[in-house]
Every structure is written in structure tokens, then in C-alpha cells.
């Protein structure tokens, strides 16, 4: 009966009220995947609206002596990989007859992506965001407003992504008959981890083709930052079957659910969680609002246990140094989230490295400049 497991992780740990909606979403997703017109529509939107395929950029000055390729999701419309998922789920929501969308956001990138697709398709959009995140990601709050979304501040608890996610789920429980919950990462109850992974796997598919074209071989190592883990799982999906390709996920040191967490249940799934010995969820701490989350997608927990992916972490200072270095050496200002991946890539013992540059850094300028 238990569905959507990755090893012992995943599942559906949600109030009963949501189970029929999850069944409906699972069935709708299965039907959409079998329907060529769904994939054609996503491909067309990706090409004509979002700017896919995104380029692969060789960065020669960032880490001399290595060939580091950056997958430029920062050049996607709205400035981050989040749009891949938001577009796919918005098309799916319409197939399910849902005209109201709720979402959570941390850094604001997923909120902006969701507000964007809702504007594009004429859907009502409510985004929950922690008050603390609204303070440190002001530009994205303004963008969401301009796009016609209602941003609802979450004023309790940590006032960050964890509470915003809880409030979005509570809204969904209340309005489940009219509303689709457009979750922003590969977390949550089944089928969300699988759905988000599949919608983000375009990153890995394109990257694989592009690096084979550019280098005639696969990368030695693929690196991506991991908060909830959606850009990483999308990138890794393209290389999981290539046994010779090593994969590294980089968490924020103060939000390292995989490196220092324990099995737990948060927001509908069993995964590796920052929790105390009683199962109470701990606060995460990161300069990067997008990584500031005490949970992670269940598939990452399984990939850690199997040893297929290695998970490491980077500190705030290391991320800030990489943020500045990429700007100065390549003329690219990365988001603070992928700056964590950049920070670890420099010390890898590998010549050919592929990094997912999951978003651009405009939103982080105030935050980063205050620290640099």
C-alpha cells in the first residue's frame, strides 16, 4: 500500500484530507506522461517561453587547470531552474481542472517562477513566504507582486522556508478541491518527488548531450547544490546510469540534512532531516535562503545511502568567496545557492567537471555585499 518509496524514504505522511488529491495528481501525471501532446506542449513552452536549451559555458579562469562547464540555468526565464518545474506543474494543474495555485518559497525563485506561470496561464496564485526571507529577498517579493501573485508572510517559527511550506500545505488542506499545490522541490508526499525530478531532468538530459558535443566524453564529476535538491536531482538524472561519472551534492554547512541529519518525517515524506532525538525539527541556518531548509528530497537520502552520490557541504564564507570569484573571473554573478557547488568544485580532484549553475545572483546582491 505504501507508495512512492526510495529505499525506506518517501511515502505519504499527510493528513487523510490530502490523500485523494495525491491519488488524483498521481493518476493525472501518469496520463500526462503517456500523452505526447503534454510533452510537446512542455517542449514548446521550454523553447519559446523559457529559453531552453540553456547553454553550457566553459569557465577557464574560475579554476585554472580544470575544464569546468557551467550549465546555465541562470539564463532561464526568471533566472533559475525553478521555472522548469513550475511550467510543468501549471500545465498539469490545468489538465486536472485546478485554477488556483498555492506555493511556498524560500529565496523567492520558486515563488517568482510560480507567479510567472500563473500570470502566463491566468491562474490565481498565492505564495507563502517566511517574513525573514521576505526581508532578505526583497526584490523577489516585488517581482511576485508585479506578476499578480498574493504573497502571504509567515510570521511564526523560524519565519523561513520550513514554516512557509507548512502554511502552504495547510492552505492546500483547506482548499484542496479547487487548488493545486505547486511544490518547489523534489520533497513532499508521493508523487511530488518523482514529478519534480522528471520535470527538472531536462537539465541533465541537455547537459549530457551538450558536454558530449563539446568534449566528446562524459564529465568526470557532476556537481550541484542541494537544498530540497531539485536542481541536483534534475542534473543527476542525466548521469545516474553512467557508472563512470561521479556525482557530488553540496549542502549548506548549517542546513546539511544529508551530511548531519537523521531519518525523520517532514512535510509529507520520510527522509534525512535535521531533527533532534525526539523528532522535533531543528532550525537550519544558511546565508542562502534557498538552502535554508532542514529537509531534503527522499531520493537524495537513498542516493546517499547507496553511495551513488557523495554529499558534502560548504560554509557561508566559502559560498561568498565563490560568488565573488565567479563574478570576477567569468563575468557571471551566480545565486548564493549554486555558489556552494562552485566552492566545492574548485577542490575536486578531477579535470573535467560539470556544475549546475542553478540560478543568477541579482536577488542576492544586498545580502552578499553586506558580508563581502
Amino acid at each position, binding site marked *: 500500500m505504501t507508495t512512492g518509496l526510495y529505499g525506506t524514504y518517501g511515502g505519504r505522511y499527510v493528513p487523510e*484530507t490530502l*490523500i485523494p488529491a495525491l491519488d488524483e495528481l498521481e493518476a493525472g501525471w501518469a496520463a500526462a506522461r503517456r500523452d505526447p501532446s503534454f510533452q510537446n506542449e512542455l517542449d514548446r513552452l521550454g523553447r519559446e517561453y523559457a529559453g531552453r536549451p540553456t547553454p553550457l559555458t566553459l569557465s577557464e579562469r574560475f579554476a585554472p587547470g580544470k575544464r569546468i562547464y557551467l550549465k546555465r540555468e541562470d539564463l532561464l526565464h526568471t533566472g533559475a531552474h525553478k521555472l522548469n518545474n513550475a511550467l510543468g506543474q501549471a500545465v498539469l494543474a490545468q489538465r486536472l481542472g485546478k485554477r488556483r495555485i498555492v506555493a511556498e518559497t524560500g529565496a523567492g525563485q520558486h515563488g517568482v517562477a510560480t507567479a510567472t506561470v500563473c500570470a502566463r496561464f491566468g491562474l490565481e496564485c498565492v505564495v507563502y513566504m517566511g517574513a525573514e526571507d521576505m526581508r532578505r529577498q526583497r526584490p523577489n517579493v516585488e517581482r511576485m507582486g508585479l506578476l499578480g501573485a498574493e504573497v502571504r508572510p509567515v510570521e511564526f517559527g523560524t519565519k523561513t522556508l520550513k514554516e512557509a511550506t507548512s502554511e502552504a500545505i495547510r492552505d492546500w488542506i483547506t482548499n484542496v478541491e479547487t487548488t493545486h499545490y505547486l511544490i518547489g522541490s523534489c520533497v513532499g508526499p508521493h508523487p511530488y518527488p518523482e514529478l519534480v525530478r522528471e520535470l527538472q531532468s531536462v537539465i541533465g538530459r541537455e547537459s549530457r548531450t551538450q558536454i558530449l558535443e563539446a568534449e566528446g566524453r562524459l564529465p568526470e564529476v557532476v556537481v550541484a547544490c542541494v537544498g530540497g535538491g531539485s536542481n541536483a536531482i534534475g542534473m543527476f538524472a542525466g548521469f545516474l546510469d553512467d557508472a563512470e561519472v561521479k556525482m557530488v551534492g553540496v549542502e549548506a554547512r548549517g542546513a546539511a540534512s544529508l551530511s548531519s541529519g537523521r531519518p525523520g518525517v517532514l512535510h509529507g515524506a520520510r527522509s534525512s532531516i535535521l531533527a533532534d532525538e*525526539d523528532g*522535533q525539527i531543528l532550525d537550519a541556518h544558511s546565508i542562502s535562503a534557498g538552502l535554508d531548509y532542514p529537509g531534503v528530497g527522499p531520493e537524495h537520502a537513498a542516493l546517499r545511502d547507496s553511495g551513488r552520490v557523495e554529499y558534502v557541504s560548504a560554509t557561508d564564507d566559502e559560498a561568498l568567496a565563490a560568488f565573488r570569484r565567479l563574478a570576477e573571473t567569468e563575468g557571471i554573478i551566480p545565486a548564493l545557492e549554486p555558489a556552494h557547488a562552485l566552492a566545492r568544485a574548485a577542490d575536486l580532484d578531477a579535470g573535467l567537471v560539470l556544475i549546475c549553475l542553478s540560478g543568477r545572483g541579482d536577488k542576492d546582491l544586498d545580502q552578499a555585499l553586506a558580508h563581502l
Partner: protein
Amino acid sequence: MTGEKTLVIYLMAGPDTPALAEAAVAGGADIVEIGFPFSDPLADGPVIRRAGERALAQGMRTAACLDCLAETRRLVDVPLVPMTYASILEAYGWERFADAARAAGATSLIVADLPAGERPELRRVQLVAPTSTDERLRLAAEQTDGWLYLVTLTGTTGARAGPSGQLPGLVERARRITDVPLYAGFGISTPEHARETAVLADGIVVGSRAVELAEEGPDALCEYVASLRTALDG
């Protein structure tokens, strides 16, 4: 049972809970649920969420909650049912938690984010909602422990202005499927709500409003529970 209809009162675990439970029973409660607080309670509205935050700040972790349960058991004879979230059981050990709760005097268990079908080996009171399909109602009724918890509305816990329009249909479907007692909860706060709900269901569960009254002390809680009791028996 003090009357034909069952009155279930929810209290958050805390230092005063045993005395409050005693007051609730004196007022006419037939079953007392004891909330074991969790940091991220998805099924709960603001009143119980805040009560949980306060309880955690007072150190009401799992061991302290089990002690509270045992102390309450010494004071009252009615069934006691811990209500909590999956993360607490995951950390404590699923079977170990069920054993420890039983040893401390629990009659059953409610896990708000563990729907029927997940971990069927854990005996517990199952919840069903207006959105539940007949197939899910059947599964929950088969697996439930003693009675079925009818969530009266699509939403989180907390008082509502009036009775739920979604409940009559749910009760009607559940009656066709099962003979187990149906106790309805979520949103019920006034004697008037209680009476209207009990016309349909075999019992009612009152949480958020009881938690608010409990903050005013045992006397206020007892008086409130008695007003519900009168409404149910009247």
C-alpha cells in the same frame, strides 16, 4: 459513558494536563486526547500550533509527554488517547512508542499525518475526511481501533463560525460502509455546534476551544465541558 453521545476533549500535554484532564472528566468528557507536541503540525490551526510551541518551550518532549500520560492515568478512568505526528514515532521507534504509550495508560493512538494504509501494523484511531473516497472509508474503517474520527471539513483544526456543510454527506457514506462509532471533530467549539453535530454522529471531538479554556484553568475548562455535555444530553 455519561450519556448516549460520546464527548472527546483534546488537551495539549503539559505540567497542568493531569489536573485539567480530571476537570474535563468531571465536566463530562468520556475520552481525553493528549496532544504530544510536534514542531511542524500540518493538520493544526493556530490555536493548537501555538499550544504546541508553548509545550515544547516547557520541555514537553516525548519522555515528558509519556510521564504526563501516566500521571493523568492515575487521576482519571476514561480512555486516554495520545494524538501526535509521525516524526515523533519515527524518532522514538514506531513499535516502542506504541508499547510505551500503552504502558503509560493509553487506550489507543492518533497520528494526524499517518493516513490509513501507511504502517497498517500500528493500531490506531483512523481519520477520514469529506474528501475520502468510499474505498478509503472502507480501508480506514477496517483498520481503525474502536471508533472512526470524522474530520468534519477540509481544513485544519480550529473553531469555525458554524457547523460543517460537508459532514452530513460524510456521515451518510460512512454509515453505509461501517458499523463502528463515528466521532466528528475539527471546527466544533460551541454547545450549539456540539448539539447539531451529535444529531449526525455518535460523538464529537473538541480541541482548539478546549485548549483555549484549559489556559484559563481547570474550573473554566470543567464548566465549558459541562456546557457541551448538557448540549449533547439535552
